[in-house]
């Protein structure tokens, strides 16, 4: 019992160390450049909502793992929210099936500006293994404007976390010229 309560003060260290490898986060920046105002805004707190647009759920499993005690994305000020109105960043996965097209557009429109769209996984970037199928639209950027892409099929939680941190770093840079 006292073991339980002593945890309030000290937690056994199981966390993965990502700060050192944050600079190696692999992501692509596409679409319009985010303005510097947005960059300062999400410095300490980022609300993420994950949208599955006809995905295989492999990316979701990896994304959900970000919340566990091992990766613990909350310590960076990032938390997951339930409603697009509360969200700053949407992480979209899946090649956007036809049925989810309207829903994805409405989600995008329901999010207040400034917002960031991240396409997670190869499926979301260009259709991945489903490219060319009659049932999918081959990538999120065919439906809504995407700002960042994280490649991988699916990317491991370590890779997602590194990419996320690198995106946050990118957002904090103040001297980025806009198009």
């Amino acid at each position, binding site marked *: 019992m006292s073991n*339980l*309560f002593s*945890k*309030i*003060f000290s*937690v*056994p260290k*199981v*966390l993965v160390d990502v700060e050192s490898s944050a600079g190696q986060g692999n992501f692509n920046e596409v679409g319009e450049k985010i303005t510097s105002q947005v960059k300062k*805004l*999400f*410095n*300490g*707190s980022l*609300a993420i909502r994950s949208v599955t647009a006809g995905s295989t759920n492999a990316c979701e499993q990896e994304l959900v793992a970000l919340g*566990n*005690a091992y990766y*613990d994305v*909350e*310590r960076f*000020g990032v*938390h*997951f*929210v*339930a*409603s697009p*109105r*509360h969200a*700053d960043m949407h992480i979209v996965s899946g090649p956007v099936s036809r049925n989810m097209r309207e829903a994805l557009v409405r989600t995008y429109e*329901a*999010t*207040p*500006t*400034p917002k960031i769209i991240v396409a997670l996984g190869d499926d979301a970037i260009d259709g991945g293994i489903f490219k060319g199928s009659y049932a999918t639209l081959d990538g999120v950027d065919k439906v809504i404007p995407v700002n960042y892409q994280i490649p991988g099929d699916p990317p491991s939680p370590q890779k997602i976390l590194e990419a996320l941190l690198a995106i946050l770093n990118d957002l904090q840079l103040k001297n980025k010229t806009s198009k």
Partner: protein
Amino acid sequence: MYSFIPWLLQLLFIPAFAPLCIGLTRKIKAKFQNRQGASIWQPYLDLWKLFHKDEIISEDASWVFRFAPYLVFGVTLAIGASLPLLSTLTRLPTGDFLGIVYLIALGTFFLALSGVDTGGGFGGFGGSREMLVSSLTEGGLILSLFTLALIAKSTNLFSISAVMLAVPSFAIIPAVLAFISFCISMLAESSRYPFDNPATHLELTMIHEAMILEYSGKRLALMEWAAANKYLIFISLAVNLFYPAGLATTLGLGSLLIAFGALTIKVAVLCAGVATLESSIAKLRIFRLPDLLFTSFIISLIAISIIA
């Protein structure tokens, strides 16, 4: 009779420190889950960011939706200014406990209306559940505070805390029973376990969160801040009415500082208690909640009958 500076301090105290309490509770819960968790100052950063985001308001919403966050937040400010936080002397004419309870009801009324206003399914049933819980909580809340009023022979919160500084011996057991009943009401009104999970994503299990799903930007910030304020209001009522050791009885700077320190420690202990509770039990099914609320009512009833 009230002097200006402590009153101003009290007005700003609750909104200033409420996000810290929420952050502390979340941090302790995270530690129980073997995680690091966000820092205890995270809610401040969240609020700051929300104040600087744009808003999207539904086309079906009316002025009730736009006005409600201001009213809900204003109500928590008004209540916060009327509590015995630092001293027993800065009494305001609104320090009557029935006034506090019905001001809370005013906030809840507009919160539920704002949930119904947008015409989405979630806000509607969120409002329905919120009214179920809050209407049944009022009985236990009023009776537990009335127990204290009977002990202190006054319904003014400041007088109650002044009397409870030196608890008369006949009043110990009734005060403990009233404390248990008050804690159940506190958990209900601040939407904590076992009534509601403040961190859930499952809309079908939400009570408070469901009503604010449509809010964004600065109005969302006001609503979340108001919820944090309500949490701190109930915690400070619980600590300063039932165990007011450390409350300043004079208005000197030294005693006020001691009172501030004592309040901080007591609030931290109770936040840790709530966090421990939330990490140990599961949320109750909604039709079990009225049983819990009626239990709180009956415990207060027993407390009142024991008083000589």
